[in-house]
Structure formats: structure tokens, C-alpha cells
């Protein structure tokens, strides 16, 4: 699998799965204005992935995440309000789409013509992972956003429900539907 060379990224803490206590610590730091860089490097990949559910370009997703993170940081929110960070990303992304609908249409057309311009949302290690990522792209938006929040952002169903303004049951069922759809897509015929 071709590995990409990200210049200067060695400064950033590598993405890793956090234990619940670690996450809590990270988010408490996030809310207490201490070392925002380490906090952000922990949450940024998941947040960017979440933002990219609405925008094609990685640069646009970064703009959205930046705005949401600064808002969250400035308002000094705590771990209990973590869903607010995702709700902010979602809301800013939707505003961005409304604001920039013409550009988005143009981009969508261009993207339809040449797929190679889309920056990948994941770092693949093999073809199985690539196929899995492609399958995720095909999922309905409401299932995909729940999946992204649950798997790569490690939100609870209660937090997902809070961020999306839906019930916990709906969040859980969307998650299950997403997993079932992926399983069906990846099953050998």
C-alpha cells in the first residue's frame, strides 16, 4: 500500500484509540485551556472525518473543524457537553453547504469527472481497507454520520443523539443499519 508523506506531521501525536479515561482527561484539558494542541491532535482526525461527510474537500473540512473547535474552546465547554463540539461541526458544515452551494455543485461535477482529486478520508493499509472505505462512502448520510461519530469519535449513543437531535434508539438503530449494510456490501458474492 502506498504510504503518503506528510511533511512535518511527526510533530503531531499519532492517531490512536483512547481508553475512556484518557478521552475524559483529554476533553477536560480541552475545556480548561491547557495545551490545546495535544487535545486537538487527539480529536482532530475524527472531527475532520465527521466534517467530510458534508464537504468533498479536505481543506473545506479543515476550515469547518477550525471554526467549530475555536467556538467550543472559547465557550469553555466541558466533557459533559462534548456532543456540542460535533453539533457545532455539523451546523457549520451545513451552513457552509448553504453558503457555498454553487461551488459545491461545481466541485461535485468536477469530482464526478475525475475521482483522483478527492483526498482520501482514511489512511489505507491494504485493499480490504480501501474497499471498506469505499463502502462507507455509499452509505446513506444519516447512517454514515452516526457510524463516524461512534467508531472514530467514540461518542456514546446518548452523545450522538444529543449532537444530532435524535433519540438514542434512532441513533443505535442507524448504527446497526450501517453495520448491516457494510456487511452486505463486503460479503463475497
Amino acid at each position, binding site marked *: 500500500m502506498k504510504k503518503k508523506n506528510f511533511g512535518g506531521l511527526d510533530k503531531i501525536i499519532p492517531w490512536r484509540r483512547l481508553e475512556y479515561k484518557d478521552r475524559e482527561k483529554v476533553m477536560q484539558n480541552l475545556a480548561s485551556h491547557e495545551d490545546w494542541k495535544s487535545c*486537538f491532535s487527539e480529536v482532530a482526525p475524527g472531527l*475532520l472525518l465527521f466534517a467530510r461527510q458534508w464537504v468533498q474537500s479536505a481543506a473545506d473540512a479543515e476550515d469547518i473543524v477550525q471554526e467549530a473547535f*475555536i467556538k467550543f474552546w*472559547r465557550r469553555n465547554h466541558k466533557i459533559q457537553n462534548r456532543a456540542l463540539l460535533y453539533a457545532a461541526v455539523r451546523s457549520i458544515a451545513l451552513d457552509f453547504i448553504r453558503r457555498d452551494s454553487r461551488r459545491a455543485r461545481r466541485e461535485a461535477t468536477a469530482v464526478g469527472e475525475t475521482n483522483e482529486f478527492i483526498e482520501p478520508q482514511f*489512511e489505507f493499509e491494504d485493499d480490504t481497507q480501501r474497499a471498506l472505505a469505499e463502502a462507507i462512502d455509499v452509505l446513506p448520510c444519516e447512517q454514515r454520520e452516526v457510524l463516524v461519530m461512534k467508531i472514530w469519535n467514540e461518542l456514546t449513543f446518548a452523545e450522538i443523539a444529543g449532537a444530532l437531535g435524535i433519540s438514542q434508539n434512532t441513533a443505535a438503530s442507524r448504527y446497526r443499519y450501517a*453495520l448491516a449494510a457494510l456487511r452486505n456490501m*463486503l460479503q463475497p458474492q
Partner: protein
Amino acid sequence: MNDLSEIENELRKLRPARPSPILFERIEEAMMDRRAGASHARQPARLPYNRLSLGFGLAAAAVLVLFAAVNMERRQERGEKIAQNSPAPETRPVLPAPRGESEITRSTFSNEFVPAGATRLVYNTRDEGLQFARGSGQPLRRLRYQTHETWQWRNPTTGASLRVSYPSEEVVLIPVSGQ
């Protein structure tokens, strides 16, 4: 269900793409800006003071507008009275009136306003240069005067006076002679 947990595990192995290092720099800059903005905001109660002065200013402006409106109404009423009363001298009979009419005529006289003065204050003169009038070969100097004119009337009987002021602008063309 077992199948679902398998796919879940596969998904967990996927790593989301990492953000660009520029994003960190941009956020850092934005944080610095915010902090600078916040420290400005913390300066001694400037905003409430501004609001207070704005409030006073608006209240004063409202009072002035009300005062001007009331004044205008009064002037209009007076103007109507003058308009009603002014024809009186013209219709005044030359011959002595009969007994019954004399009282009415006297009361009309008591409401009569007579011109008491007029002033014209030129507060700005602008020389707009030489010009040629249409069909004329002689140059003209064009001067623009901005003035404030005031007319005053006085009722000799009651001592009441009325004053009307208005701004005006006058353009004067002066022929320039070459000799």
C-alpha cells in the same frame, strides 16, 4: 450479531486521514486573535459606557425632533392665522364703517402683523470660475452664495412677533470685462 461485531472491528482498524500541520498553525493564530480580542473586551467597562452615551444621545435627538415638530405645528397655525388675517387690510373699507361693523374691523386690526425686518447672512461664497453663457462670447464669473435669510413680522397692538428663517443659495453671474 457476531457478523456485525466483526465488521465493527474492521472499521476500528481504519485510520482517519490526519489534519494538515497548517491547520494547527491556523488555529493557533485564531486563538491568539481571540485572546487579544478578549483582553480588549476586558478593558474598563467601555462598552456599557458607550451604550449609555448612545442612549443619552438618542434621547436628546428624540427630544429635539419632538421640539422641532411642535414648533413647526405652531408656526403652521400662526401662518394660517396670518393668511386668514392678511386679507383684512385689503378689504378694509375706505369709508367709515357702519356702527355694527366697526367692532369686527378693530378686532381684525389688532391681529395684524407688519413687517419688522429682514436679514441676510452670507456664510459662504464660492467662486466657480469663468464661464461662457450660451450664445455669448463674453466670459462670466460664476459666484455661488450660501445664505441664511430671516424675515420678521410684528403685531404693533399685541407686541407679538413672528420670525421665519431659512437657508438659501444664490448663483450670480458677473460679466468680466477685458479692459
